[in-house]
């Protein structure tokens, strides 16, 4: 029997590819060209996303991966060092844990 691919089966790499697409949409293709986006890319320092961009990004994440993902709630529970260190790999893992 055919079955739709469940989001749970998504690998970290697949999630990362979707996130890369969202980042491109949020900050603009011409600015992404200069960035190397990897799981180690830090959200605020390497990608230099400001709060408005982060909100736009999290809306896209929610729309795609489902309402269980409380991205801004997750962020607001961090301390400063966690926010500074936060990278795309952390976000990928968080999304996977919510699926």
């Amino acid at each position: 029997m055919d079955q739709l691919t469940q989001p749970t089966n998504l690998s970290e790499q697949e999630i990362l590819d979707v996130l890369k697409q969202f980042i491109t949409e949020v900050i603009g293709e011409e600015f992404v060209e200069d960035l190397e986006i990897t799981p180690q890319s830090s959200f605020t320092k390497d990608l230099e996303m400001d709060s408005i961009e982060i909100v736009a990004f999290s809306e896209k994440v929610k729309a795609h991966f489902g309402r269980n993902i409380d991205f801004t709630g997750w962020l607001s529970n961090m301390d400063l060092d966690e926010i500074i260190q936060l990278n795309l790999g952390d976000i990928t893992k968080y999304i996977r844990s919510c699926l």
Partner: protein
Amino acid sequence: MSKFLFVVPPFFGHISPTLSVGASLIARGHQVAWAGIREIAPAHVPAGGRFIVPHAELEEHLPEIQRILKRQDDGPHISGAETLKLALEETYLPFCRFLMKGLPRIVDEFQPDVIINDCITFAGAICAYNKGIPCVTTTPVPPDVGGDAMSAPKVHAWWVRHIMALQEEFGIYAPASVVNSDKLNIVFTSQEFSGIAHPPPHMKFVGPVKGRPNDTPFDWKRLDKATSPKVYVSLGTLLVDIRREFFSKLVTAFADQPLTIVAATSPDIFEQWPDNFMVQGYVPQSQLMAKMDAVICHGGFNTVNDTFMNGLPMLITPIAYDHFHTASLIEKAGCGIKLRYKRLRINDLRSAMWQLLENPQYRNAASRIRDTFIQAGGNSKAVEYLETFVEECKMINVKFQM
């Protein structure tokens, strides 16, 4: 007559409004002094006032003070969360500790009736608390009540933890923060512009205060001959590399446009400027504003205040620190357009500028902000609050002594 002591940080944007209010207090016959960790140009100190730096106590810390001042240049290159750490842990706290070495002596010698501490210069309020002197706070930028990062509980807890530890270092075991006054906090913008619907009662919005006259020469004839819309550009005193990059974008965007650009920057960052650019390092900013049609700046608060006092629309390109908060207030008020400096596109620059010049809604909104600024009362209102405060404190003192 009373004695007022302003306690200020080594950042001119914070010092500038206190110089203006101080000059008004002196004109009313009061005695006024300033205390800080770095001298300012003597020409800036209002006649009759004194700027006191406790050099003897600070001497051993000079290299560290220099290092911290230099560190501020990293602001544009680090994230918002890192900027918060840089501000509190690497700047405000050490500056407070340095100033506390000499401030108590200055206070004992000057014997102020009131200490007026700038909002990030905690030493003033701590010293006032320890010596039982009434304390007022001045806030030069619209306070970011519940800012993005600060609204996160752990980030807020981090801030409070540092403030309480600092207070304990100086023997203060109060259950709450005393580093800003809870009696009177004078804010140099209007309540409407600040976007704070229900400010605490001690927060008083007096709007921009007037500076001293600036008689820097300028090529007024050339400016008056220009027939195209005039746009003033200022980037404050930021790094030279940012300046080059920023102005090269402006040149690309506006060189072939029917605009006259007045750029407040050293002309030698480029060998040649387009014909429609007038470039000068130091300019008589307030007088220039009166002749402009729009302003481009990063969000330094003195320029923001000058812009809206003249009812001009603004293209704001926030770079670091409080610029983002100021930019969001400008967008909310409808008196300008925000373009983030980090991702600045030439086409966006151009179309935003023509929007500002051709769509009257921006200028109308800027005029509304000007009205709120003027109604806030400026210098005379600030002086009124301070005089009333000091008289009330003296009366309470007399009662206690009876």
